[in-house]
């Protein structure tokens, strides 16, 4: 708990509500000196790992220094998660060498890794819904009093950790299942912080956190590095790396391309290293047709979730609904798509009030939705691409509405594969074997079998690599050009700014401000965070 105490001591600084910038010096003195600079905390050489026929890692090297934040980036499927799983003892490497503080170590199980102080927050939260937060945090390393678990001691520690992450103390004894996904992610982080970490690994922690929560997390990370902990940080949000990371290792196709000091690179350069090519980030300039809104929300309310939401999307228009996680954005999308039902207000489609009671009804009305959580809400994992595309349009692809027209199904699938440039040998490939970006394109393809009047995209590029992101943005723009009213629900501000014709900001469960295409990141963020003195941090300031 050594590191933890140092962190706790610094908590008050954060609570003053001040802005934390990258230049800020730690408020608390470092209690543990960083390890000697010449012996790295962790050195990986020649790592290789294959899963059946998939060569997840071909040859990877990485050197992580104590007291530093080491970013690990790469496209989807580049092998980042596999790397950290090897370090954490989840998977065993087929080849390669791991040195810890200069000595070679064998990490065969997660227990071995924990013994070395390697604490990991995995990409998917690894929690137990039926157990309390405190139990989750100490699971596998329970504090004991004789034969029994020392509940009081555990809870006391957990309360400190929760405070640190800005969560209420009463959560300690709440069942994890009763928390939101973002809160669960923070519990995972608390779990990683609860031990005597020497290496803290964070695999895409920011993907589902709000900016404010990320800020808290960064504060914690800085305290930890100040005490000599080495941090490995994986993220697809390249801009945030500039505010936290000291150096970055880039992976491509299972190989490490190189390690660079953050200061030497720009976002664009990192992205180019990741994809091995040159990117353009010009915002395509489009003419937005005028006309009445196709989709209109008037004072839409769902008790306890959001209220008085006003919004209109015209045919051919891309509107971004931007809000921090927990602000109610995702619930608004669920309501439009008939997953949830509104308790007040109106949902108008082409001026006609509608109230879809199920996704099926929404689809019939001409509304399609790309779900946010690809694995859970989007994919039929061990089924083929064609299966994944045709699901939900089966009547349409059937003769007499009963017998499946397999030839047509195939034509439709092949067509969409070509249109969305899905990388696959054929449409019979199981979707589970595909990389995140390609899988996302397949799930998107499903929404395009019938040209929808309204397309809602929930976090369309979450966890998708830069190359695929680019293409998905292109597809979205094309769709709009074809006359679809597009609503992008996102917590990725650069994305919103890049593709949207208008941005609607949601805060505290309701729509607050609207911005045009020329808005700056600063303005939008300020509106979303909702307080004038909450200074936004934009990319330029950080870099």
């Amino acid at each position, binding site marked *: 708990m050594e590191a933890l105490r140092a962190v706790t001591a610094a908590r008050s600084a954060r609570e003053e509500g001040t802005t934390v910038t990258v230049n800020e010096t730690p408020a608390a003195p470092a209690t543990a000196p960083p390890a000697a600079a010449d012996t790295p905390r962790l050195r990986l050489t020649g790592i290789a790992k294959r899963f059946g026929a998939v060569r997840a890692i071909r040859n990877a090297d990485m050197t992580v220094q104590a007291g530093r934040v080491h970013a690990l980036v790469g496209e989807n499927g580049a092998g980042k998660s596999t790397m950290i799983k090897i370090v954490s003892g989840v998977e065993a490497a087929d080849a390669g060498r791991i040195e810890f503080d200069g000595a070679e170590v064998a990490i065969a199980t997660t227990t071995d890794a924990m013994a070395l102080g390697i604490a990991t927050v995995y990409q998917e939260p690894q929690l137990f819904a039926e157990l309390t937060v405190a139990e989750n945090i100490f699971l596998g390393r329970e504090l004991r009093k004789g034969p029994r678990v020392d509940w009081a001691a555990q809870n006391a520690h957990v309360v400190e950790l929760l405070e640190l992450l800005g969560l209420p103390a009463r959560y300690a004894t709440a069942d994890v299942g009763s928390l939101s996904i973002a809160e669960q992610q923070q519990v995972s982080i608390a779990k990683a912080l609860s031990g005597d970490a020497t290496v803290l690994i964070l695999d895409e922690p920011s993907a589902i956190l709000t900016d404010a929560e990320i800020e808290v997390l960064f504060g914690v990370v800085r305290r930890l590095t100040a005490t000599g902990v080495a941090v490995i940080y994986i993220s697809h949000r390249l801009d945030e790396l500039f505010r936290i990371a000291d150096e970055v290792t880039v992976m491509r196709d299972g190989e490490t391309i190189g390690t660079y000091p953050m200061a030497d690179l720009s976002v664009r350069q990192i992205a180019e290293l990741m994809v091995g090519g040159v990117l353009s980030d010009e915002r395509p300039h489009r003419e937005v047709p005028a006309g009445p809104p196709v989709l209109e929300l008037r004072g839409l309310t769902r008790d306890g979730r959001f209220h008085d939401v006003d919004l209109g999307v015209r045919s051919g228009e891309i509107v971004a609904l931007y809000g921090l996680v927990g602000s109610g954005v995702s619930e608004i999308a669920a309501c439009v798509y008939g997953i949830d039902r509104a308790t007040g207000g109106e949902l108008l489609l082409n001026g006609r009030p509608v109230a879809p009671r199920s*996704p099926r009804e929404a689809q019939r009305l001409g509304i399609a939705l790309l779900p946010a959580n690809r694995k859970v809400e989007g994919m039929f994992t061990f089924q083929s691409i064609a299966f994944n595309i045709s699901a939900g349009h089966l009547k349409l692809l059937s003769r007499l509405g009963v017998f499946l027209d397999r030839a047509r199904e195939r034509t439709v699938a092949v067509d969409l594969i070509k249109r969305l440039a899905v990388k696959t040998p054929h449409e019979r490939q199981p979707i589970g074997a595909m990389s995140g970006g390609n899988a996302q394109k397949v799930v998107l393809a499903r929404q395009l079998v019938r040209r929808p009047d309204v397309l809602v995209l929930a976090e369309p590029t979450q966890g998708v690599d830069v190359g695929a992101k680019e293409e998905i943005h292109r597809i979205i723009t094309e769709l709009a050009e074809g006359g679809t009213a597009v609503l992008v629900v996102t917590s990725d501000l650069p994305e919103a700014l890049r593709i949207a014709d208008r941005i609607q900001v949601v805060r505290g469960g309701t729509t607050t401000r609207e911005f045009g295409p020329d808005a700056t990141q600063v303005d939008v963020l300020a509106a979303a965070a909702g307080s004038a003195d909450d200074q936004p941090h934009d990319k330029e300031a950080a870099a």
Partner: protein
Amino acid sequence: MTIAPPAPQPVAEPARESAAGRVLRVLLTQRIALLAVLIVAVVVTFFVQDAGGYLTAPYDFDYMSASLINAVPLAMLGLAELLVIMSGRGGIDLSVGAIVSLAGMVFGFGYGEWGWPLWLAIVVTAVFGALCGAVNGFLVSYIGFPALIATLATFYAYKSIAIVANDQQPISTPPIQDLYSLSGSVELPLIGQYIPDVPLGIFTFLLPTVVVVWVLLTRTAYGRRLYAIGTNDVAARWAGIEVRDTRFKAYVYAGLISGLVAVVTVGQFASARPDAGVSGSGMALPAITIAVLGGVAITGGVGRVAGVVLATLLVVWLNAGILLAFVGNEGAQYQLLALGTVLVFAALLNGLTNRRYGGSR
């Protein structure tokens, strides 16, 4: 700091798999191939034993064909389990045997006591079975009961009602006794002279059921929906599929098939017995065994009609052979050993397959 040199290709390329490796992979990942090989192995073993004079009676095509009479209820209920297990969320139906008992009594009353025409009695029995299945489907799909629990409860309930329905007496009136002709063996037209007679139930009930279920699963929109909800029911809902309706129907169809099996059973035993589907170890457990052996994944979304049919043939022909291979009480006991071994073996193979090849189809 470090720029890694391009790695030469050190590990064996997946494309260059040895012939033996490929055979092994096919056997492990294709349950149908494995079952086919096992069936051939079983039949050849008994033929060889027969030729060597180790069997009490000839194990020949006539005997194999006659023993197929057992395949009719077994495969049909195996298909019923296929449908519900496929539907995911721990889908299973422990009540199929009890439905057979109860629907059999309905058939007994209708056809045997009240003199309904046969077609009407069959239709009513099947519909009644479907209704029993609908209760299961309602509990599982609309209320959210775990299938194991819902069908355990209805198993107890249907079984009990079937027993009290006719004061635990079987119904075996003359019309019912005459029904035995339905399950007799017949000579096929044209080629029938050269091949063994085949139990009639194969053609009147089993084959139609097999074909209908196969078409349902592979050629209809409903089949797709069933695979979809079995694979991932959350994604299915977001894709606009009526998950509850689809799962509900799986239980209804299972009940419908059980109702047909009730007719088969009444015919085969020339009496409507109130404990027809639950006496001994009952009909549900063997049916689940057949489904699992046939490669239906207990987690849902994976399963094929051919697997169930082949698994039935394997079990039926294995059991028939064992009865000839062992004298006395041992015969029935070794059937248990064989079934247990085959099941454990198949299950372990599944585990191995999952680890080596990431799942079987």
